[in-house]
């Protein structure tokens, strides 16, 4: 399964990137492909392309704030959690994504 998503926390320096790292590790362990865009204090990095969003089976938003460009995900299955949840239980989250995506 291919998971695309965004991580963004309030101060934008720690939890944003930890959530990204945790999600990446958990997805890989589950045999999934994943790409997480970060919207932190240094701006947007690893930006999702239209193609990424198109082929994603599901979108995960690990965010504590309103993010830029969420209209990109219209029509997709979107799951939104806090960065805290992504950092604390990334494996459970990935399993949940599988359930919701039905894959």
């Amino acid at each position, binding site marked *: 399964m291919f998971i695309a998503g965004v991580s963004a926390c*309030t*101060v*934008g*320096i*720690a*939890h*944003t*990137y*930890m959530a*990204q*790292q*945790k999600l990446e*590790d958990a997805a890989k362990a589950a045999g999934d492909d994943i790409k997480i865009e*970060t919207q*932190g*204090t*240094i*701006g947007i990095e690893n930006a999702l392309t239209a193609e990424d969003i198109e082929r994603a089976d599901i979108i995960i938003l690990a965010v*504590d704030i309103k993010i830029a460009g969420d209209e990109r995900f219209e029509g997709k299955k979107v799951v939104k959690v*806090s960065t*805290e949840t992504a*950092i*604390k239980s990334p494996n459970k989250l990935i399993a949940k994504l599988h359930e919701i995506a039905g894959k």
Partner: protein
Amino acid sequence: MPELTLNDVLDRSTILTDVHAESKEEVFNILIQRLFDQGYIGSIEEFTEAVHNREKEGATGIGGHIAIPHGRSETVTKNGVAIAILNHEIPWESLDDTGAKIVVLFTVGASGEGSNDHLRLLSLFARKMAKAEVVTALQQATSVDEVIEAFQD
């Protein structure tokens, strides 16, 4: 210009081991004073307020007895980290209900200030803290050298 590495973020002068503190506030006082003395922040008061503001927003304990408080403020003159290895665990709101024995306090310049390169390094630092091996090594570190070692690949 030489490429910045994680070791440019790690500063021996802001890594303290065997720290005695009974509360989160004490740890903040100790680390923020050190950051001030080492030229990372212009005002202790302002930076402390920024750190408190972030604490109000949610738990900065990330589990494994580690806490990553951080403050973003105009008074930050240098982006970096101060690390305290406490001599015993203290209460700290965290993701897994453990307290904190290792505290990594980040200083973040307000947007527009400070080099993006340094901020990028801080983000890499944060990603390292999400790795189990780094967390384990930090939990076993008792000296400044061991703390620095924990972050090496």
